[in-house]
């Protein structure tokens, strides 16, 4: 497995996947996506976990797309690799707990939307930042964000691109399961996973299969509309400029 992911399955049959690309702060580089998919492959090939806890760095859970990918898209090169991650999570056999100690932006937040239970940190920020860069949301955001945030908060997040602090989201009353101090995020995730691990794994998988049917359909719907919107919005001449200024170093 690539160094940017840490995977282990503990004595309670709980899988822990930590996205750990310290150098690039968990952005969707090609290596990152490859590492993520190969960790999921390994999990499926060698284990039957009761649940997966998906975590990231202390500072950044996942930062979403990298600049080069967006510039490629704005040059008309359609790249759907990041969608594979959404699909992979939604099609997993076991429940996934997203334990977001750090920030989650854009596609990084989508990883949580594709999970079954979500824990966020009071101190960190969460944003559907796509429109800040001039193009419409992707990776399933337009159909999946509502489930986690509620329709109107999802609208606000997508239209404004604002990066909301965990404490702000807590006040808004979203569907995020827990918004706790950063230091307690993993403890909470472990406690939830332990409760799942006490159940019959076959029934856990059955339940997951049935509950994920709705999300699978939502992701297909998203893909249709988001691909079309991306073809249009990435082709606007001003989009490339906005992407460049957004990533000014």
């Amino acid at each position, binding site marked *: 497995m690539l160094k940017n992911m840490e995977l282990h399955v503990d004595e309670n049959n709980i899988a822990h996947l930590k996205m750990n690309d310290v150098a690039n702060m968990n952005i969707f580089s090609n290596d990152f996506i490859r590492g993520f998919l190969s960790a999921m492959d390994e999990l499926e090939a060698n284990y039957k976990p009761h649940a997966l806890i998906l975590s990231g760095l202390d500072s950044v859970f996942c930062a979403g797309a990298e600049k080069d990918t967006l510039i490629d898209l704005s040059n008309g090169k359609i790249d759907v690799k990041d969608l594979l991650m959404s699909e992979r999570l939604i099609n997993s056999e076991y429940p996934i707990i997203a334990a977001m100690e750090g*920030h989650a932006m854009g596609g990084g937040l989508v990883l949580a939307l594709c999970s079954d239970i979500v824990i966020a940190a009071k101190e960190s920020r969460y944003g559907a930042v796509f429109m800040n860069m001039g193009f419409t949301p992707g990776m399933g955001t337009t159909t999946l964000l509502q489930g986690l945030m509620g329709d109107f908060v999802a609208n606000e997040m997508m239209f404004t691109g604002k990066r909301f*602090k965990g404490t702000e989201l807590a006040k808004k009353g979203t569907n995020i399961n827990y918004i706790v101090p950063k230091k307690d995020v993993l403890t909470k995730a472990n406690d939830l996973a332990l409760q799942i691990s006490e159940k019959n794994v076959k029934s856990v998988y059955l339940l997951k299969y049935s509950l994920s049917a709705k999300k699978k359909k939502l992701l297909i719907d998203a893909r249709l509309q988001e691909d079309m919107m991306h073809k249009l919005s990435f082709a606007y001449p001003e989009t490339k400029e906005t992407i460049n200024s957004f990533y000014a170093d």
Partner: protein
Amino acid sequence: MTKEKIIEVISKNIIENLDDLENETIDPKKSMKDYGANSLDMIEVVSCSMRELNIKVPRAELADIEDIEQLADKFMEHAEA
């Protein structure tokens, strides 16, 4: 627009965007980091303040700013322009 007004707006946004600062007086000689801000907190404080003051500063110009007073100076430059 006076520098005092700008510092007042920045300070208000620091208090609104960070936790547990309700009773704090913001010292412009300090960095937002001294008040517990992470990088995205700082971006949020800056963009809220710019909206409120109707100032636009390109991102690249904000990179080297070290404290709240320097941020206010940068805002002044663009307010007068």
